[in-house]
């Protein structure tokens, strides 16, 4: 059964097209990961899903409810844990949770029971009665997560839930998300950490340029790729020109399907080859063209390769490219209501 159904979402920020026809179906009780570089449109999509932003066109359904027409019913069903954690530093954690409970119209006893439960579940008992202003990043994130879960939503939406967190907080949050999923909560999370999505999600969608460019179970996506992955360097740190020359040589070799220059890894070359038998030929051809082989490694396809295959660049490169184009000031203005 489909819990979230986003249809052909388009959203402009001024002249910038943040979402370019994004469509997504998230099955009930799944842990769904949105993977993509910063600036790909993940946050915009999640903000539209959570009724914080309206799309220029497109449709949003949450368990059959048209969230654009009946936002209040949609809001009741979802818990949203935003990327930027906004706590009131004057309130204590408990007071914030009480406020949150009242905004979701919980009865007092139900609200206080839930607060107790989440406080012990997220190990917040020691500091829940201290003011939020004194919390560390991990504490803030845990409290924010508790606030999102307070009304027992059937859908939990998390935007980059573990960015900048210590390892302990991160694994505590991962553990909680897995438990929630097994108890039937649908979870949609965005991340630009490959390992986070890989570790948690049973379904993923890769987002790039405001659209979904690939979706499925991580293992299936990797299997679909086929071929062997090879990373090759002619020296430890190469440059663009040299990498381009080497790329041309490699592309002419039979059995080489694809060659991509990986800027983030010192202009190494990422190849997809038919099989192991191609490897000796790579060495021969390069030596003939007077290039050394500094290193050559072979691996199974990873999610990064899935991304690479779909977009022709690595996740890291995409992030670098987008970072220079983003207008953060405009974005923060758009995010302000």
């Amino acid at each position, binding site marked *: 059964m489909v819990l979230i159904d986003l249809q052909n979402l388009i959203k402009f920020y001024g002249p910038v097209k943040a979402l370019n026809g994004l469509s997504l179906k998230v099955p009930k009780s799944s842990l769904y990961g949105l993977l993509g570089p910063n600036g790909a449109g993940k946050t915009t999509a999640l903000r539209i899903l959570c009724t914080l932003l309206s799309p220029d066109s497109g449709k949003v359904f949450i368990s059959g409810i048209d969230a654009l027409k009946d936002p209040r019913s949609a809001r009741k069903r*979802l818990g949203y844990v935003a990327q930027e954690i*906004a706590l009131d530093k004057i309130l204590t954690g408990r007071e914030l949770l009480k*406020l949150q409970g009242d*905004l979701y119209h919980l009865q007092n006893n139900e609200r206080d029971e839930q607060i107790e439960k989440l406080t012990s579940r997220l190990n917040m008992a020691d500091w829940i009665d201290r003011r939020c202003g004194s919390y560390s990043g991990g504490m803030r994130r845990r409290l924010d997560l508790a606030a999102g879960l307070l009304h027992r939503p059937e859908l939990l939406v998390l935007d980059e839930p573990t960015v900048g967190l210590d390892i302990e907080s991160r694994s505590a949050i991962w553990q909680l998300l897995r438990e929630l999923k097994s108890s039937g909560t649908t979870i949609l999370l965005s991340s630009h950490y490959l390992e986070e999505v890989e570790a948690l999600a049973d379904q993923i969608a890769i987002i790039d340029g405001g659209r979904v460019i690939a979706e499925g179970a991580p293992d299936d996506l990797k299997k679909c790729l086929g071929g062997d992955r090879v990373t090759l360097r002619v020296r430890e740190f190469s440059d663009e020109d040299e990498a381009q020359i080497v790329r041309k040589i490699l592309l002419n070799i039979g059995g080489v399907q694809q060659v991509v220059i990986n800027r983030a890894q010192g202009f190494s070359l990422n190849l997809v080859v038919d099989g192991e038998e191609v490897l000796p030929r790579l060495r021969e051809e390069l030596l003939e063209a007077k290039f050394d082989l500094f290193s050559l490694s072979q691996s199974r396809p990873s999610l990064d390769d899935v991304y690479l295959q779909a977009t022709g660049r690595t996740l890291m490169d995409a992030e670098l490219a987008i970072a220079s184009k983003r207008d953060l000031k405009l974005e923060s203005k758009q995010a*302000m*209501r």
Partner: protein
Amino acid sequence: MTNTLNTFLAETKPDSFADQIQEISALTRRLFIQLIRRPSTLIAGILQPLIWLLLFGALFAKAPDGLVSAGMSYGSFLGAGVIVFTAFSGALNAGLPIMFDREFGFLNRLLVAPLYSRNSIVFASVIYITVISLLQSLAIMITAFFLGYGWPSISGLLLVVMTLLILVFAVTALSLGLAFALPGHIELIAVIFVINLPLLFASTALAPISFMPSWLGWLASINPLTFAIEPIRAAYAGPLHLQMTLLHAPYGNVSGYGCLSVLIGIALGLFLVISPLLNRKLA
């Protein structure tokens, strides 16, 4: 037994109304917790008008005869001005907490919640500001009393409270509108600064219109503050007759009822202008 009763109450709970009361009281409670933990604004807000009252009162104690109407000391003349000005500046600042909530993203926490009505956010601010203004006014009135400037009658007191409520409602609406229309708190503070003191000096808070040059008299007699100051001043002056002329404006005489009607008109006008803006921003 209790359980049955609770279930019964839960089932018959008039959903929408109880929901709205719950969210308004939660939002209001937050503002008061902030106030109690950060009392400096309240303390300053109470001390400042008292200082105004003392200093201005002393400054103009020997004001020439005829500056204020016969039988009234300058101090009791000034009291009404300080009360109104204090309520006015307090309400003008009402948008600041909301502006900070916008800037820090806390407003998103409120907007993603299934509020029965997003106007609850506005109501909470209005309740908060009104309570503070009434506290400040009370402090001013008590101080004025001990300075020998008198105390209004019961009906006068009611008039003071009613006038303040209308004024605070109107100005809070204005400030909340600004808090959503302007890009950030710097701009909001700038606008507050530009509005605040000029409106004080171009009103009858410090001197009557008869004492002003005619252009300033014109400004003062279209200044909303004047329409709040005069009824409150009348409440202090003695027996209360709202049909009496309270304001000798260049365009004619305005009675007490006239003053209140103008205030109500301004409040409604601002509300009508600003609520579509709030609805759009909060939709």
